[in-house]
């Protein structure tokens, strides 16, 4: 996971540097626009909690809180519009560990209709964001009586990453100090595969066994609407400063499929099973607000 996180940091730095060097290198400031925003927000994750079957269902163990946002975050968004029709956007998101381990990349195409405050366009997106998967050993603790169900005494919590691509139409509105954009994207997402191991020992007996879980990328179709509002507070020269509010959601029906290797006594004595748990309804909702500058 640390190598994945390092990769994100590298890409984010690369993008930020590329953006900065782009600002400096451009010789046509009258045609380019840059946008930077700092937002604070909350993310709510909802997923079905299905009844236990004989196989572990990792979706049941995605981090979930009651009556509160699962994650608070700080979002840094940088946009560059080299022409009036095209806009590139990169967003780095910091969760409670203040590590920039989420990345969103967007490209917008917005045909200009002169004199009309309402426009439309297309948006293409790539995103990757983390979430906690925790306490999944409780499945074995409940099921495997007569065993020390997990020889690892530490609390089980890992970060898993949801990766997706999406595209869809946008509609935007601009009137004096106010601007708004609504987008409706659909695409494919899936959790990046991860491995977990549960080691067990039978009580008062020699028997030891291990479960090795190797998840597979299990793509799911999702729908992701999003709305953004902005209000310009002041402006001076090319510099504008304002406030922004953004809200969005994501809905999909998805599962985490995996291959399970069950070892009894020795590594040679293995049973391999391909498991496809039932799909869960999964949703993500985010609301965030903050400040922006354009130049």
């Amino acid at each position, binding site marked *: 996971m640390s190598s994945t996180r390092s990769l994100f940091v590298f890409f984010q730095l690369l993008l930020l540097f590329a953006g900065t060097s782009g600002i400096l290198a451009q010789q046509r400031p009258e045609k380019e626009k840059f946008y930077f925003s700092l937002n604070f927000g909350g993310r709510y994750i909802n997923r079905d909690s299905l009844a236990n079957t004989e196989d572990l269902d990792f979706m049941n163990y995605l981090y979930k809180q009651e009556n509160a946002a699962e994650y608070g975050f700080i979002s840094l968004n940088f946009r560059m519009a080299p022409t009036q029709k095209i806009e590139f956007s990169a967003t780095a998101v910091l969760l409670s560990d203040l590590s920039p381990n989420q990345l969103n990349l967007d490209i917008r195409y917005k045909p200009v209709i002169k004199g009309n405050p309402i426009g439309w366009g297309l948006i293409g997106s790539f995103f990757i964001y983390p979430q906690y998967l925790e306490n999944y050993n409780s499945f074995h603790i409940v099921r495997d009586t007569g065993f020390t169900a997990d020889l690892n005494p530490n609390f089980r919590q890992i970060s898993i990453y949801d990766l997706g691509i999406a595209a869809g139409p946008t509609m935007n509105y601009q009137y004096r100090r106010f601007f708004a954009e609504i987008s409706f994207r659909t695409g494919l997402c899936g959790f990046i595969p991860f491995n977990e191991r549960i*080691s067990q020992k039978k009580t*008062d007996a*020699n028997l*030891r066994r*291990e479960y090795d879980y190797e998840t597979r990328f299990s793509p799911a179709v999702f729908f992701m609407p999003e709305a953004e509002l902005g209000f310009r507070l002041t402006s001076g020269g090319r510099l504008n400063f304002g406030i922004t509010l953004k809200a969005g959601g994501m809905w999909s029906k998805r599962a985490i499929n995996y291959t399970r290797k069950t*070892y009894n006594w020795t590594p040679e004595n293995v049973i391999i099973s391909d498991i496809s748990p039932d799909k869960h309804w999964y949703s993500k909702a985010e609301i965030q607000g903050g400040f922006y500058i354009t130049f």
Partner: protein
Amino acid sequence: MRIIKRALLILAIANLIRIIPGCCECDDSTMPFNFNKMDIINLDNSGDWAVTTNIDTMMAEAVAFEVELFDSLGYYYAEDFKSNLKGFSSARAMSCDCSFPLKANHYLTSIRITSLYALSPEIDAGSDVSDFFVASPTNNSSSGSLYSSLETICNESNGKTYYDSGMESFGLYLTIPVDNNQARFVISIGFSDNSVLSDTTRLITIKNK
């Protein structure tokens, strides 16, 4: 002139850096020893991890022993070691605190276990029960929590270098429950020089739940 002075300074620093670690050099020599003594210790494997014990009572499904093979002259015995290093590196005051690993003159080729008592109605006294045992190297966390086969233990001893002490030790774990009140085994270890070491476990009283 100034450039020459700078070049000489850089060379002097580089040489100084080279000289300091250059005084410390270990060679790859190993000290030979023999496996000619054997101990068998009871293991209490009723908990999560096996621990050695002096108690001669074991659970029916948790019969386990630790076997230790070492040189009769002691765990740490080694022939008089003579360093092959030359020059400053051989000077005691200048040498590193090198460890001298040990290497056995022979390796394990077989582990044979015979039960002196019937293990069940199907397994009579005097039967070869090696196939009902698995093993686990002692002090080796790299193998995970699973056991190894007896063949794996033998194979891994071939060419093995012993860094901590001249002792091969491993646990032996019975994979079937003992359907008897008592159990005792003869454990015979075969070596690559055709020698065999044998020992008998203590008489184990089997405790059922």
